[in-house]
């Protein structure tokens, strides 16, 4: 596939699920990376580097003052981004002008969506070339208003399933989720963990028979070995804090790319 075509592809509605399904149906495992938007001067270079190193899709965090689902690492990145004056608009402007080549989804908290207005936020995503949205403090019951506007413009809203989610509810969430189903790997917030929680594979094993949508596991997946372990049950993984840590530590786009390449190699071996 030529690069320009890939870029156009990655921005059309439905690109997220299309890309992830293609990877899975190809017999491969899905790798989704997370980077906090605006966390440093070179954040966009890091995003591009991560895409080139083998991520199938990238979550762009829009920093929020009160990120209740995030642990210390993403919190630190959010604070840095906010101190640099990052806003949803500044991230959208940067992404609109960027050539990343893989589908992008924003990950943010509902107040930023609500404050902008559902319709305006959904359209801003489309204008920025972002095809998906993950709003972790917007559970199924509260998501109706946003989902309608997102659906109307083709933005794929990814919903999350927790280890505590009962099966009947998990089925409803899977049915509503677009792009992929985000399986929460452990009962806790984002952050690196020394060991992979047993719940990570359990959640994947429980969800996969429920849906044809790709099932990816995130939160607490911190290194290539853990990613590979999760992928014995899941269609793919989401790696956030461990990657953000490399950037916070000053490794820049190169360190991010090396890490993503290692993750890619890890899951490709499954």
């Amino acid at each position, binding site marked *: 596939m030529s690069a320009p075509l890939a870029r156009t592809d990655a921005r059309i509605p439905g690109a997220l699920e299309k890309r992830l399904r293609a990877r899975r149906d190809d017999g491969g495992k899905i790798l989704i990376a997370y980077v906090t938007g605006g966390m440093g001067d070179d954040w966009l270079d890091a995003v591009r580097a991560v895409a080139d190193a083998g991520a199938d899709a990238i979550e762009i965090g829009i920093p929020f003052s009160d990120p209740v689902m995030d642990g210390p690492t993403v919190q630190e990145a959010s604070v840095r981004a906010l101190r640099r004056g990052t806003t949803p608009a500044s991230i959208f402007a940067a992404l609109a002008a960027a050539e990343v080549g893989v589908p992008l989804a924003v990950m943010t908290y509902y107040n930023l969506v609500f404050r902008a207005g559902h319709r305006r936020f959904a359209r801003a995503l489309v204008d920025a070339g972002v095809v998906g949205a993950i709003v972790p403090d917007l559970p199924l019951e*509260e998501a109706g208003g*946003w989902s309608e506007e997102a659906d109307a413009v083709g933005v794929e809203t990814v919903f999350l399933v927790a280890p505590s989610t009962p099966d009947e509810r998990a089925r409803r969430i899977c049915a509503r989720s677009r792009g992929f189903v985000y399986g929460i790997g452990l009962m806790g917030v984002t952050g690196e963990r020394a060991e992979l929680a047993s719940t990570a594979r359990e959640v994947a094993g429980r969800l996969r028979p429920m849906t044809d949508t790709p099932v990816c596991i995130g939160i607490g997946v911190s290194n290539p070995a853990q990613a590979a372990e999760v992928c014995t049950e899941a269609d793919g993984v989401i790696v956030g804090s461990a990657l953000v840590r490399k950037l916070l530590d000053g490794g820049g786009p190169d360190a991010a790319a090396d890490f993503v390449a290692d993750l890619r190699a890890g899951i490709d071996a499954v």
Partner: protein
Amino acid sequence: MSGPAGEEPSAAAGAAGATGGEPSVMGEPSAAGRFGDFGGRFVPESLVLACEELEEAFRSAWADPEFHRELDDILRDYAGRPTPVTECPRLSERLGIRILLKREDLTHTGSHKINNVMGQALLARRMGKGRLIAETGAGQHGVATATAAAYFGMECVVYMGAVDTERQELNVFRMELLGAEVIPVHSGSRTLKDAVNEALRAWVARVGDSHYCLGSVMGPHPYPWMVRELQRVVGTEARAQCRAILGGADPDWVVACVGGGSNAAGTFSGFVDTDAILVGVEAAGGAAMSHGVPGVVHGMMSYLLQDEVGQINEAHSISAGLDYPGLGPEHAHLSAIGRARYATADDEEVLRAFKLLSETEGIIPALEPAHALAWVVRHAGNEIPLGSTVMITMSGRGDKDVAQVRELLT
């Protein structure tokens, strides 16, 4: 465009809210936990089940006479209920209006917070949870929760902003004396709102064995409803006591301070069906209702102090207990339907009111309810006509604030 609040209700929200008929004022919220447009349950999926289980447990406990009997006994024998309503003749003469105080300052631990925590701890025990998590700002709710944990023999972990652990060292020591672990929170603005975030994060990780003992009528459903019900005792008692004092009449005005809004909600619930004018007084520097706009944080839709893109702002006042950038969703609703009004008091008039009550009545108020008093002082003889009867909830005593006030006055 009018924004999401004005958009068509979604199919999901519509279905969830379809319980038939308008809920009564200060009755139960809708099935989705809404008071009008406000409230709800905006939590990560990992907490949805815990909130549902809590709602179910509270519903069943609250319908169980045995639970009420046990809670009433604890509130009487341990917390010191009922608290009196006190006439304030010297202050009344000074202001030209008749002032009655509901004396939550006389409870064990010195504020209305005890009503809520004893109820939630009893509920936690009923749910088989032996560990309490709490957030605290100044430390009042943390101290109350640590007290309840000691009483029930439970483990207790209190999250407190690092700025506040420094400002309120003595309360940190109190909590530790009571056997609680106090964890300073270094994230965000390192104050109450961040302590709530951290408590929610901690709850996600320990939902199996821990109950999150939230300190006010805020947070996701069922907290705003549950905490108001646990504080209802303030209003129920006060109404009967006022009638006894006033020859069967109700006060013309009922005034309470509003941080998250729990003492005000408990107070208002006793008077919402009378002709009393209900007033909630926020700190001028933390006036979510007066200066905020609708938004979602800490699991609820309510009025919040926030910037134009939706980042939450900090609140600042002399009273840490009112330094919260939001307020309970039911207050947003009471304001929207015009049943209660919300006003502010600034630091300077609060200090004057603090001194005034101390000198005229021998009651040193906490800085929080001094806001309610300050508003009444400002309006006595103008908006509040001379000769009116005003009941103010004295939500706590001022011992905790004496050192700070001394510094401010010298």
